[in-house]
């Protein structure tokens, strides 16, 4: 035995058995290094930053509850007669898929609860993804360097909708069958190739005997795998880019101010998973979702009143409901060259969704081109401080909501005792006018809020205290802001329009002129942030506001 191994050197030996095991693993895996790196990652604290986490946790809940459901679900469309314990369907002819869904609901222990957990979590998943995207959009978090992560997030939104829709159809009940029928109709409305795609998808004429098992494979294999891949990319980029932060004292594009991941933030995030799980579990325990036993087995002939898709497909259904069959005397459904072109289905089903998703994917580049802003941004915009972007977002949001509301037009009619026809006419009008009104109103509100901020930064907060001065004048006492709060109100950028710039040949080309025009549209209405000079002037003018309270009449008179 060689003694040159310096046996005297202090070797770390853990005191407890657990510590020794941990040390053994750490020496081989290097966990402490990873922990040191990740434990120091700083996350800014704000409630609006947590929707991505809600989405992630909902996805975990979906994986867990979904695995349970696969143990009992049989996606076969073979015909059978129901023999389970729900008497109103006893001996009714149905598919094995529907029968096994009913068995999960009524004969598998805890099955109905798990089905409801899965479905509520699915609705929450898409909802939290959407709210997360709205937060990212309205705070400008998609700007450099996060454009690609925005695209990954947009792909995740579409994948989550795909996951939801494929799952919604699996029980093979009347409601989801009606939904599939609409999808079949939309596919068949695609000119020339539509019929072929439909036959390919359904393995023959609708409904066929294949679709449920095909959707099942997509639902439990392909779509979740893609979602998982995208989540990994998404989170990897979050680590690379670091988290954004709201403007505040000491925060700039070069730093991140917040709590380190370990231990407080990690504990909070871990606990938050159980909170989300708890909320979903409470909803599943006390509130019915998708009572498939009410709908009965799918049969292409009956259609129930109040047939809607789950909320995230609602806007497409709404657009279909809004589309008129004739415009004036012109039939939207046309026969050309002896072939039927059903534009009254094709246009509403594909065009609004196409516009929404195209703008969603390309918006970071559109804004970058208009503003020529190529800098990195890690400090977020407060929505009011980017009035035009906020207005564009609200216009899109309202447009979506009009279509969304249209999907429930029949329920609006019955529950508010108005005519279904009037609801449709109003929503048709709002489909075009709504976004315009939303754009104008939002922009004005944002500018007004900026002016209010400016006012507060310069003159302080209104206290509501009215003071009568010795000579009889009434004044309202303004309390000065502390520096930290004031920073929030003054620390933002308000770019002015960027005029057209000649290119390297000294020519202002048409594209550049168009860009300059858009830049003017984007930035012409602006409220400049308060400058230090203005602040100095406002304060130096009448000293501190406490001095006013001291009833120095002469001084305030000059105010």
């Amino acid at each position, binding site marked *: 035995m060689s003694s040159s191994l310096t046996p005297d050197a202090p070797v770390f030996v853990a005191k407890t058995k657990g510590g020794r095991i941990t040390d053994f693993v750490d020496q081989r895996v290097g966990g402490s290094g990873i922990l040191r790196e990740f434990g120091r990652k700083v996350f800014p604290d704000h409630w609006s930053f947590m929707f991505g986490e809600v989405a992630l946790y909902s996805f975990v809940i979906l994986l867990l509850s979904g695995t349970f459901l696969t143990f009992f679900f049989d996606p076969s469309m073979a015909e059978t007669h129901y023999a389970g314990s729900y008497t109103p369907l006893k001996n009714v002819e149905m598919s094995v898929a529907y029968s096994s869904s009913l068995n999960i609901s009524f004969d598998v222990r805890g099955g109905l609860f798990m089905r409801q957990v899965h479905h509520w979590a699915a609705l929450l998943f898409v909802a939290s993804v959407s709210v997360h995207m709205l937060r990212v959009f309205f705070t400008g978090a998609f700007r450099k360097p996060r454009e690609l992560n925005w695209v990954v997030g947009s792909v995740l939104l579409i994948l989550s909708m795909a996951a939801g829709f494929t799952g919604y159809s699996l029980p093979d009940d*009347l409601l989801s069958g009606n939904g599939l029928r609409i999808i079949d109709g939309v596919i068949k409305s695609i000119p020339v190739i539509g019929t072929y795609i439909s036959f390919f998808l359904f393995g023959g004429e609708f409904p066929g005997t294949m679709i449920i098992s095909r959707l099942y494979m997509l639902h439990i294999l392909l779509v979740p795998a893609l979602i998982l891949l995208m989540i990994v990319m998404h989170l990897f980029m979050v680590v690379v880019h670091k988290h954004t932060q709201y403007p505040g004292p000491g925060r700039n594009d070069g730093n991140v101010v917040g709590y380190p991941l370990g231990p407080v933030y990690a504990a909070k995030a871990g*606990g938050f998973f159980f909170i989300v799980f708890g909320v979903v579990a409470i909803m599943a325990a006390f509130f019915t979702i998708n009572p498939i036993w009410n709908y009965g087995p799918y049969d292409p002939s009956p259609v129930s*009143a109040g047939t809607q898709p789950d909320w995230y497909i609602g806007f497409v259904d709404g657009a279909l409901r809004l589309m008129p069959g004739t415009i004036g005397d012109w039939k939207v459904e046309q026969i050309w060259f002896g072939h039927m072109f059903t534009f009254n289905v094709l246009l509403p089903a594909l065009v609004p969704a196409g516009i929404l998703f195209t703008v969603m994917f390309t918006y970071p580049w559109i804004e970058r081109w208009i503003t020529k802003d190529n800098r990195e941004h890690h400090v977020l915009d407060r929505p009011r401080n980017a009035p035009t972007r906020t207005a564009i977002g609200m216009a899109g949001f309202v447009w979506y909501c009009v279509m969304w509301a249209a999907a429930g037009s029949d329920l609006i009619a019955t529950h508010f005792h108005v005519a279904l026809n009037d609801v449709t006419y109003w929503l048709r009008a709002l489909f075009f006018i709504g976004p315009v009104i939303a754009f104008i109103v939002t922009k004005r509100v944002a500018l007004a809020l900026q002016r209010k901020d400016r006012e507060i930064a310069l003159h302080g907060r209104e206290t509501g205290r009215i003071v009568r001065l010795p000579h009889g004048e009434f004044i309202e006492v303004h309390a000065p802001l502390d520096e930290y709060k004031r920073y929030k109100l003054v620390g933002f950028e308000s770019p002015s329009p960027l005029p057209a710039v000649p290119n390297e040949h000294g020519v202002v080309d048409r594209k550049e002129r168009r860009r300059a025009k858009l830049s003017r549209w984007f930035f012409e209405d602006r409220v400049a942030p308060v400058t230090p000079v203005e602040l100095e002037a406002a304060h130096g003018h009448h000293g501190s506001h406490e001095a006013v309270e001291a009833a120095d009449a002469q001084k305030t008179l000059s105010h």
Partner: protein
Amino acid sequence: MKAISQKRRHPLAAIALLLMGLLVTGGLYAVATTVNQAKADTTYSASDVAEGGKLFAANCATCHGVGASGSQSGPSLVGVGAAAVDFQVGTGRMPMQMNGPQAEKKPAQFNEAQTKQLAAYVASLAPGPAIPEASVIDGKGDAAKGGELFRTNCAMCHNAAAAGGALTRGKFAPALAGVSGQHIYEAMVTGPQNMPVFNDANISPEGKRDIITYLKQIESNGSPGGADLGALGPVSEGLFVWIAGLGVIIAFTIWLTSRTS
């Protein structure tokens, strides 16, 4: 026999044959349809009819005309039968509170005896659908068959869970929870408001009994999965997850990120 065969080439033979055919089919049709319609109810006493006539003159004749022969403001009630009166008056739809897209349900304005007298009076004017016998509304039929009939014939307006649905121009199909078997049956045979008539050739009395059984059974089953959110399907579910689900979670996020300072 020989005489007929000799005259078969007579110029009027074709016309005679046509007449014969029309008489036979018409006669058969009349017999077939009156099986359903012509049930002049004989259970009412003469005093019921007389009292009903007085009630009618005082409360209904303004719109439905003297002798129920109809006016500008209301249709003739000759031949609508006792079932129609029992449904419309028994559910409070008649007398109508106001003009609108359709007469709405409200607390009944007449008691049972008065409703019976009114029904007796209208039934005495001409034969029409009678009030169903207890055996077809007892709710002891086959619920599964009733469910299939309901989904095929009723769900497109009343919703698969019988939660009701919208029709055009402010009209609607009402929710069916809490409606008595008798009223459901009467609605099927008389087709009130915008509802089509489901006569006995369309859905047999046994089928109607099954439908009533199904409706009563899903009503008494309640909602196995917890609160049913109005049984309105994905719209109320979506509304719930956005407002209650996300609302509670936002409250938690605010709590988690708030500082103690």
